[in-house]
């Protein structure tokens, strides 16, 4: 796949991320830790441009420039008090990016005319040999077809569906936390009759759609899954009160990390897998620590308003 030197650079980047988290845990080394993390990210991105066969280079560099200027400008300009909602917004767009990447990867075999054969556990990527495509009339090399078939195996499809769902939840949930902290909507918990049942129903629908997407490899179902994920993110954050919102941002941050990790599995990119997992795991610990520092538990923050609503009603 990609050259060995590039994979070694990815390992260096992964170590940088571990050192960054370690550094950020102590006041003395925090700032240096953040810089080490930024260096690791820069290394990873530069290596990716060189090691992979990248078309559309001009467009991509332009998009990177837009994002970099926008991100740096926003981060420099924002008022100190508005930093938490900016972090929420950055976290949300990261989740959105992960979901889009997974959707596009899923659409690749379909665009090449490859469909998943019947059978949920049909994991033998060799079935593509029976595909009408293997006469290479579509201009696909055997290696390319193998890669596309791999994207339709149950393991990869599960990771794809997970990335799409969790990325969408993180995106819409983060937007709601942003609106709450920015006081564009009320900071008070928003509940409505039957809220827990609606939320439960949406979760069941998401799970069902996820399994269905894995079984069929259908892009249409994956898009519906993404929409249901967006709805679930909104319903997750609406009942949370303003003071508890930072803890929910931390939780959604861990979610995005896991979505990125699963995206790394789909792309067979070990760096994305490690970086995403590190954030997912450390974010979970951090969320619990933050809740404990406020004398709350994570479940009481997420579902407390539901309980309060039911006793009042």
């Amino acid at each position, binding site marked *: 796949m990609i050259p060995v030197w590039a994979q070694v650079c990815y390992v260096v980047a992964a170590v940088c991320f571990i050192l*960054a988290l370690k550094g950020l845990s102590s006041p003395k080394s925090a700032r240096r830790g953040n810089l080490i993390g930024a260096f690791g*990210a820069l290394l990873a991105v530069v290596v990716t441009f060189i090691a992979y066969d990248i078309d559309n280079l001009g467009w991509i560099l332009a998009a990177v420039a837009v994002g970099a200027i926008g991100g740096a400008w926003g981060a*420099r300009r924002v008022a100190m008090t508005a930093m938490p909602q900016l972090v929420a917004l950055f976290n949300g767009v*990261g989740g959105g990016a992960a979901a889009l990447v997974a959707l*596009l990867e899923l659409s690749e075999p379909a665009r090449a005319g490859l469909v998943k054969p019947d059978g949920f556990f049909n994991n033998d990527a060799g079935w593509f040999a029976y595909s009408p495509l293997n006469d290479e009339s579509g201009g696909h090399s055997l290696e390319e077809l193998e890669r596309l078939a791999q994207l339709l195996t149950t393991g990869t499809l599960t990771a794809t569906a997970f990335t799409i769902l969790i990325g969408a939840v993180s995106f819409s949930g983060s937007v709601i936390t942003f609106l709450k902290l920015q006081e564009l909507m009320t900071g008070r918990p928003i509940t409505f009759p039957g809220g827990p049942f609606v939320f439960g129903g949406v979760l069941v629908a998401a799970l069902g759609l996820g399994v269905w997407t894995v079984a069929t490899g259908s892009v249409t179902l994956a898009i519906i899954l993404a929409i249901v994920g967006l709805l679930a993110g909104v319903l997750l954050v609406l009942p949370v009160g303003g003071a508890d919102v930072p803890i929910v941002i931390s939780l959604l941050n861990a979610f995005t990390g896991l979505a990125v990790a699963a995206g790394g599995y789909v792309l067979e990119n070990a760096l994305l897998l490690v970086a995403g997992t590190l954030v997912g*795991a450390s974010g979970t610990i951090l969320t619990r620590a933050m809740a404990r520092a406020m004398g709350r538990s994570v479940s009481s923050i997420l579902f407390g308003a539901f309980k309060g609503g039911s006793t009042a009603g």
Partner: protein
Amino acid sequence: MTEGVALLTVFVLAVFVGFEVVSKVSSTLHTPLMSGANAIHGVILVGSVIVAGTADEAGVLVVALIAVVLATLNLVGGFVVTDRMLEMFGGKRPPDAPA
């Protein structure tokens, strides 16, 4: 399939490293640590670039470029805002010392 198991092994090990590495964080650093971790998952930019770099249809390229912009916002904005938070921490100390 062995490739999949190798990635799964990496995943499990990374979970433990992630747990361990932040286990002793002081509560004053909760927000910067969250912000720094947030910046790190911005490396999904790597994935966005790979997907955009193989796009062969205009529609796919447009969606992939949106992902590139979003991921770069996350990555660059995340590290810059974390640095600003920590600058604030460092800046607070000198005025405290004379007082």
